[in-house]
């Protein structure tokens, strides 16, 4: 049960959330011009006359952006609209050069779809997608260069965005986070958006309302442009509690647009319903309706890679993984691929454990993506093999892995360099056991008089004497026999 109920003074409140995700489309050129889309260029160096809305300039649509939207629609199990229309959304803002944004209003390219979200308790929920449409991004206004002026950079103006709108199906900050993670995962799988929230290529607006369970939807507030999953969750939590406080105090929620202040952890009014823009949408007369060939849509459909959900099901069925581990591994295409490379011909559960615990722990510490892991899938596989064939013990394997992370070397090299090869030679172990027993005669006597618990002590002593390299099984057997006298 992922729905989070807020306990009010007269019973619980339910949170209702719908998310609007703005995902920057991966393309070389902009949605309607031939200017580049690369992030981080000098101001106004990636601007065409079209992007700057110079008089007489006209838009021509980029076919790859259309394809990316269709791909995304297919991946969201959504209806692809064979005819869609581009509209102008009119408003004045200095980083909106034409005074209108080309967007899609009444006839978007993608209609209803679904996303399945995975929750911490291992359960899943299906969240409805209302629509996905293509639109232009705006430029960037910088307000901190000078005290009395704003500075406008149009590099981002005209870059293609997909706006993905969910139904108000989410019921808690946790679900909102899971939804964003899943949508981001899908976008990355199919290569339509890099999902980078820090660079702004994935942005999120949240529509939040509260109600008594079973009641109709309450009045919602829209929280704009929250730039991390954690902030989205915090903003929703703050906003839901704010609304409950108002309602319990006998007040009413005013429909408005709010901004999240991440420093204070609060939302505040940006504009009220009365100040809401009148966007005067109408079909862009510079463009004709976009008509897709159904055969082409089928071709796009056929070109998609295996998506996270089917992959997860396959990992559970074929590798015997727990739903949780499978979910963790498929979240990123790269980690799923990594897992499959390690698991091939090996113990899949062991592979999964090593990746989700040791590898992810190390990457997390180093702040690295799996693509840049110092330990390749082949190297981790090699480590597992050394355990399987008894070259090293499981205990030593963790040290070897740490050294691999540190040095980027493969497992065998580390083992050889550090002389960590496991000792299985019975005579070497026997010598060590005898040495310890001779030095600890008193404890041996105690043991023999019935203090069984001392067995672990002897194991530890011998291991320490042998630098941890003794084969644990051989050591156990030998020690037991010797102590028995």
């Amino acid at each position, binding site marked *: 049960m992922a729905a989070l109920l807020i306990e009010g003074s007269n019973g619980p409140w339910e949170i209702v959330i719908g998310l609007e995700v703005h995902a920057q489309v991966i*393309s*070389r*050129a902009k949605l309607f*011009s*031939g*200017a*580049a889309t690369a992030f981080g*260029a*000098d*101001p*106004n*160096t*990636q*601007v*065409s*006359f079209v992007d*700057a809305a110079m008089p007489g300039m006209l838009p*021509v*649509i*980029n*076919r*790859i*952006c*259309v394809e990316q939207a269709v791909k995304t629609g297919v991946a969201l199990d959504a209806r692809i609209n064979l005819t869609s*229309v581009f509209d102008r959304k009119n408003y*004045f*803002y*200095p980083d909106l050069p034409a005074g209108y944004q080309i967007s899609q209003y009444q006839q978007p390219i993608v209609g209803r779809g679904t996303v399945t979200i995975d929750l911490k308790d291992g359960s899943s929920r299906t969240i409805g997608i209302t629509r996905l449409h293509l639109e232009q991004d705006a430029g960037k*206004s*910088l*307000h901190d*260069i*000078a*005290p*009395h*002026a*704003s*500075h*406008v*950079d*149009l590099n981002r103006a005209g870059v293609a965005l997909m706006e993905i709108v969910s139904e108000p199906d989410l019921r808690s900050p946790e679900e909102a986070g899971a939804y964003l993670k899943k949508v981001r995962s899908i976008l990355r799988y199919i290569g339509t958006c890099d999902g980078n929230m820090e660079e702004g290529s994935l942005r999120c607006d949240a529509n939040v309302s509260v109600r008594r369970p079973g009641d109709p939807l309450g009045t919602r507030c829209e929280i704009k442009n929250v730039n991390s999953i954690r902030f989205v969750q915090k903003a929703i939590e703050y906003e839901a509690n704010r609304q409950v406080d108002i309602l319990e105090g006998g007040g009413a929620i005013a429909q408005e647009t709010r*901004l999240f202040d991440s420093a204070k952890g609060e939302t505040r009014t*940006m504009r009220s319903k009365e100040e809401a823009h*009148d966007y*005067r949408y109408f*079909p862009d007369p510079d*463009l*004709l*309706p*976009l*008509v897709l060939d159904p055969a082409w849509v089928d071709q796009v459909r056929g070109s998609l890679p295996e998506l996270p959900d089917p992959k997860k099901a396959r990992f559970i069925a074929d590798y015997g993984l727990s739903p949780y581990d499978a979910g963790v591994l498929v979240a990123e295409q790269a980690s799923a691929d990594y897992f499959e490379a390690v698991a091939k011909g090996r113990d899949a559960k062991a592979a999964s454990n090593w990746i989700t615990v040791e590898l992810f722990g190390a990457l997390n510490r180093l702040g690295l993506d799996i693509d840049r892991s110092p330990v390749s899938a082949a190297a981790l596989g090699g480590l597992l093999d050394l355990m399987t064939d008894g070259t090293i013990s499981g205990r030593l394997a963790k040290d070897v892995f740490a050294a691999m992370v540190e040095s980027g070397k493969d497992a065998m090299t580390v083992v050889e360099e550090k002389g960590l090869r496991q000792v299985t030679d019975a005579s070497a172990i026997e010598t060590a056991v005898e040495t310890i027993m001779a030095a600890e005669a008193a404890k041996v006597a105690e043991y023999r008089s019935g203090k069984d618990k001392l067995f672990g002590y002897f194991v530890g002593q011998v291991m320490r004497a042998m630098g941890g390299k003794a084969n644990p099984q051989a050591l156990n057997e030998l020690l037991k026999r010797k102590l028995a006298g």
Partner: protein
Amino acid sequence: MFLDKTTVAKIARLARVRIPEADRDRIAGELSNILAFVEQLKEVDTKGVAPMTSVVAVSLKQRDDTVTVIGDRDGILANAPQMEHGFFVVPKVIE
């Protein structure tokens, strides 16, 4: 009158054209006359008629995803009333 001076003020604000208070009545009259003139469209039965969406019967052409524009910052900024450090400069925008 199809619209009054309050509506004129509202439209002027939406269109970002300042209309002095003194002119609003006159403009309300002019705009009302035009609206009265176009009002005759109400006579036309348009039930089931699709609105015209394209004047020419062709499909929307699509461009290849190639970068064809070499960043010409000087050309982009050449006509700007105010610019600085490669940016367009405008009065401070407060959110």
